[in-house]
């Protein structure tokens, strides 16, 4: 099982098309640095992206340097995954 310890999901609210295209630029990075859970669609919709722990600092710096407002939707993915796995095991028991 892949481990997602420290990975976070950031929820970004792009104000306009220009900010959306800054987020789309992230999508094209090689190797892939972010996994869009909700891709950049339109200013009225949030963009959710999973950021590996190792990339967090750079990505947050990128967002802040471009004035992109964000919040941390999931603080540590692995915590939720562990809970999910435990709940499944309990249900099986």
């Amino acid at each position, binding site marked *: *099982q*892949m481990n*997602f310890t420290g990975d976070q*999901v950031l929820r970004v609210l792009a104000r306009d098309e220009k900010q959306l295209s800054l987020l789309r630029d992230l*999508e094209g990075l*090689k*190797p*892939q640095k972010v*996994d*869009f*859970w*909700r*891709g*950049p*669609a*339109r200013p009225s*919709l949030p963009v*959710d992206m*999973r950021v590996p722990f190792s990339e967090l600092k750079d990505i947050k710096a990128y967002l802040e340097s471009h004035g992109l407002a964000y919040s941390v*939707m*999931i603080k540590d*993915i692995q915590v*939720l*995954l562990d*809970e*999910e796995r435990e*709940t*499944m095991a309990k*249900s*099986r028991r």
Partner: protein
Amino acid sequence: LERSTSSFSYSSYHTLEEIYSWIDNLVTEHSDIVSKIHIGNSFENRSILVLKFSTGGSQRPAIWIDTGIHSREWITHATGIWIAKKIVNEYSKGGVLTDILNAMDIFIELVTNPDGFAFTHSMNRLWRKNKSTRPGIFCIGVDLNRNWNSGFGGNGSNNNPCSETYHGPSPQSEPEVAAIVNFITGHGNVKALISIHSYSQMLMYPYGHSLQPVANQEELYHLAKGAVKALYEVHGIEYIFGSISTTLYVASGITVDWAYDRGIKYAFSFELRDTGRYGFLLPASQIIPTAQETWLAILTIMEHTRTHPY
């Protein structure tokens, strides 16, 4: 594995083996109305199964529902299972569902991407695509919701095999998509198609590949409005609705566009809840409320299909 569908936990997530065992139990326990159809094999050679709910007749107009085309969207398989059980529990009680099943058949494909789903349990919970590999291509998997022959390869899909929205080498190149295409085309009388995804609480209809409104856009808009209202009245969860390209984003090669272009006038795509903070990791405690509200929306669409034959 559970011995019967009544001891199965509908408020938990399950593995592929548990779901396939549950399917066998459901068919055994309700053989008067449910049968299992094997429509093909996945890239890694797993069976692709469809549940058929029918009260008789032959070649009746039908409704197609699929869940789990994106494997990490676990709430969709769980919702599909609950809905299948709801159908067998409710169909003989009179009311809307009985009328629907006296006139139409319902097909439900619970695990549309079995390889990807198995992979989310074994290796990578956040895997989205199927598991196909091709010589000379470094990355694994195709986005099965970009592999359909409608606007294939257009905007909103990607020709980079490492992308999460990689459309694959050609339309229907993926066995999981080809199996559905062959089944629905062979059946020839499917009147509604509902493809269930998560997340972001939306109910959408074609087109995704273009901003061009479809011929019966007005009808679909009002049907979606009614379905979303029925959904809201269960647990107060708000959905937005509209055509895919104007509500969400332009996406090409998607299931509902293919269905619509094949003459299936009532083609819808659901994006189920996350209630704003869990994304794909919706806790199992929200499975049943999500299924309950989704059921009312689906019933609205099915009833409209029944009362508007074409």
